[in-house]
């Protein structure tokens, strides 16, 4: 009997911990983003983070985008040609990328490449007392360290997602048109006729923005909230990638159900 009570109690404790963490992360986000940075050089801090978070993620996004576009074209062609509709491969590649794979794969890659780096960097700053020493200098680390990183993630991830889609469509064209011999006119014009700006491009972009907020929020919060030891940082980095990936896939389902 007592073991049952213990189990219920420990379940309750876990539940309370989760609710407390969600509350903490909400206050954290609000305090970081509310108000303006008072430290003068806010724009240069943002630029530095845009480079670290966005520009340095370009290589992995471009390479993955090309390969995914190529694979999509190849698979699409093989299926569509059985129905004699291989001319629609351009439309299929573009819609798949814009609606689903562009935002989702970019967000997953972003969580692995930039999210983990953000968590580890902030966690290490905490462990080496750099965040405490900022506080004692009279500088709010939420404004000075966290806010530029959050904004950099919010801005760069949707742009990376667009770049991913563009190079994916180009990779698809390389395989379908140049290699498999689909007529280039139908590849591009079918795409142009079927892809709608509002329903497809804009909805894809909205997904990318939602994922950007969630991934960056999880990454910086895990770094800021981690236990300041080497083990704690390693656990926080793992949590960032796991939580962010699950959140992306779960939210993608909800957004798709609402949008399409």
């Amino acid at each position, binding site marked *: 009997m007592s073991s049952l009570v213990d189990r219920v109690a420990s379940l309750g404790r876990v539940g309370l911990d989760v609710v407390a963490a969600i509350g903490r992360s909400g206050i954290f986000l609000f*305090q970081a983003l509310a108000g303006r940075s008072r*430290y*003068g*050089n806010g724009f240069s801090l943002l630029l530095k983070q845009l480079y670290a978070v966005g520009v340095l993620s370009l290589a992995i996004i471009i390479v993955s985008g090309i390969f995914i576009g190529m694979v999509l074209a190849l698979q699409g062609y093989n299926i569509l040609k059985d129905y004699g509709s291989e001319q629609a491969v351009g439309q299929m590649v573009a819609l798949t990328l814009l609606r689903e794979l562009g935002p989702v794969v970019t967000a997953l890659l972003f969580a692995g490449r930039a999210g983990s780096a953000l968590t580890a960097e902030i966690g290490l700053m905490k462990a*080496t*007392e*750099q965040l*405490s*020493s900022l*506080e*004692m*200098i*009279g*500088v*709010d680390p939420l404004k*000075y360290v966290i806010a530029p990183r959050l904004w950099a993630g919010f801005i760069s991830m949707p742009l990376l997602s667009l770049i991913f889609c563009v190079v994916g469509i180009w990779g698809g064209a390389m395989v379908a048109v140049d290699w498999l011999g689909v007529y280039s006119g139908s590849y591009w014009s079918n795409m142009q006729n079927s892809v709608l700006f509002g329903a497809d491009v804009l909805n894809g972009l909205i997904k990318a923005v939602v994922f950007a907020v969630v991934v960056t929020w999880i990454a910086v919060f895990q770094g800021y909230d981690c236990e300041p030891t080497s083990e704690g940082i390693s656990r926080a980095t793992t949590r960032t990638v796991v939580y962010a990936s699950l959140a992306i896939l779960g939210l993608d389902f909800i957004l798709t159900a609402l949008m399409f």
Partner: protein
Amino acid sequence: MPESSDFIVDLQQVTFSRGERIIFNNVDIRIPRGKITGIMGPSGCGKTTLLRLIGAQLRPDSGAILVNGEDIPRLGREELFAARQHMGMLFQSGALFTDLNVFENVAFPLRVHTKLPEDMIRDIVLLKLQAVGLRGANQLMPDELSGGMKRRVALARAIALDPELMMYDEPFVGQDPISMGVLVRLIRLLNDALGLTSIVVSHDLAETASIADYLYVVGDGQVLGHGKPDELMNSDNPRIRQFMQGEPDGPVPFHFPATDYVDDLLQKERKR
């Protein structure tokens, strides 16, 4: 009876606990203005926690912490960050910003809190680095410095804004005798030359007693005693005497609380 303005920091009935463990239980500590006050006690007794309470990085469960008459834990976020500009803290690790060189580390507080022209910032930074003897190292990165040098650069950064109150967290830990001597001299020199008030948290008895004007000995969540260093050296209190004389056993036991030694050994035998 001394005036309350004679004390820059005044802890009144402060209680602080971490989970179940009570770190401070109704503690009263007053730090006299313009002096060097040593806070001493065995490792893990909450000395560093005390500095974090004064800097409001931690909040007490109850009690008041007055710094210059302001109850620090009750300040709003903005006011708190403003109040901290009058405090400097030297962290045990130095806590230099690893992406900035020595010059930029010291210039950092000036850049974020003042609108001074660049040439004036340069003069102030060189002045502070000269005070800690590291003007020649101003272009080095933190990872090119030894532990002692890091601490001196961090000290230069902490005094960049000319704080009223300097707090030193275990400044002598892990220092070779020369660096230790340099730091001891610097703390005294800076305190007197800049008219600061200094709090030195340490368990290095000889060094702290040699520079401190006043000492507090804490342990078991209480202030065990306070007074001038020579008064404490001759204290009748066995706990203070044990700490000041460095005796391994006494009121603070050598052994961590455990079950009976013989029982423990026999239990193992029986299990085999």
